């Protein structure tokens, strides 16, 4: 499990905000117990929300506190209803039974009503949670679907015999570097598949060059990503492709000393 990705998914914020279902909550609790980073992140989020509340606090009127403690006192003084002995009345047993029955009926129906009201409340809450979950699932489904489409598209290019594959191997700057070019010299389309290029700082970007008649031609800048990256079209006649490191946005001419990978086009 990739903890960084788990943390940055936003699930911990949802957890602290109380937006998760009981089951999801339990999962987060388990993750927190297992991974100290998760626990630490939850604490930071909680602390942030707490600090926000304190920074934007508003003093409530004193009357609220008075009423609150009065109500607490009242509640405490009658934890259970007092049993008062009733004077035996002169009423006939018949009426006593009727009275007893109606009292029981009233008690039973209040209990039932309360019970149903509680269940209704619970159901309402569960429904909200389900709707939220459903939305999340739909969102995930869409993302997965988009990813699948992209993969299918990529696969189509890789399997298309009109595309030549050119392996660009690491230079001394990056001996482990590796990237593939998929180039259709008749449609001039160029796709790039990064296998191994190191992360750059945000001020830098990779730039792809096609070498045509010994001259470098810009084929676009990119950030290392999975899947195929669509690059600028390159007309036939390119003898090689190479990648250099350039300032963000790319350069007009390649900074050759920074060359990372390079590969020659095999003449067929």
């Amino acid at each position, binding site marked *: 499990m990739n903890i960084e990705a788990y943390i940055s998914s936003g699930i911990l914020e*949802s957890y602290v905000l109380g937006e998760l279902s009981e089951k999801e909550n339990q999962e987060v609790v388990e993750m927190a117990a297992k991974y100290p980073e998760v626990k630490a992140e939850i604490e930071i989020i909680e602390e942030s929300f707490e600090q926000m509340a304190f920074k934007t606090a*508003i003093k409530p009127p004193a009357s609220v506190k008075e009423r609150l403690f009065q109500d607490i006192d009242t509640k405490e003084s009658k934890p259970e209803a007092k049993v008062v002995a009733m004077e035996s009345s002169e009423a006939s047993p018949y009426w006593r039974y009727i009275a007893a029955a109606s009292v029981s009926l009233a008690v039973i129906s209040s209990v039932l009503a309360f019970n149903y009201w509680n269940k209704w409340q619970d159901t309402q809450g569960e429904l909200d949670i389900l709707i939220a979950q459903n*939305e999340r699932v739909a969102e995930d489904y869409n993302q997965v679907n988009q990813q699948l489409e992209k993969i299918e598209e990529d696969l189509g290019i890789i399997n298309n015999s009109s595309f030549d594959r050119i392996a660009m191997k690491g230079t001394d700057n990056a001996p482990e570097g590796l990237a593939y070019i998929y180039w259709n010299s008749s449609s001039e389309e160029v796709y790039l598949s990064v296998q191994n290029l190191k992360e750059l700082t945000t001020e830098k970007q990779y730039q792809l060059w096609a070498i045509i008649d010994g001259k470098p031609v810009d084929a676009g800048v990119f950030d290392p990503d999975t899947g195929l990256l669509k690059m600028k079209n390159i007309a036939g006649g390119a003898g090689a492709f190479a990648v250099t490191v350039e300032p963000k946005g790319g350069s007009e001419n390649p900074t050759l000393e920074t060359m990372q990978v390079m590969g020659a086009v095999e003449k067929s």
Partner: protein
Amino acid sequence: MSQVAGRMQQDELVALLKQKDKTAMHYLYDNYSAALYGAIFRVLDDEKLAEEVLHDAFMKIWDKIDTYDTKKGRLFTWMLNISRNLSIDKLRSKEIKKVKKTDDISNNVYNVERDNLIYQQEESIGVKELLNGLREEEKLIVNLIYFKGFTQSEVSDEYDIPLGTVKTRLRMALRNLRNVLGVEK
């Protein structure tokens, strides 16, 4: 260090509250009511309703303290979620949700900062100042979710922003706020 001390105090406070200790409840109210009232008021934007909800929230805290589990998070988070949920229930029951939530708020998310409110602590600042350093889109998300009580899905629906984006913006906003809030990483 102070974190540890704070946690110790919190555990003690919770233990006392579970024994229905009223002094502890006074302490709790005195220390947390303003923070919770601020949060409640911003959801409801009505003093009378906010006072009612604050009262009900503390009543619920007193009644339900047995269900609070220190392992699951900070006491404040639990109290804040109780307060926010009650505020939102109140908002819905008054059927002012639609009017308040979509019309006023999107026009002016800071409209709750009225001049006549008394801020309790010295360091207490307005929402606007607090969020000053954030990008516009982050401000909107924090305002809606934290101060208005929207869920992330609701923001996504009502403002037509993908849920993933809402989550990312909230995360980024919280990160960017850490300095102002004095929360250390």
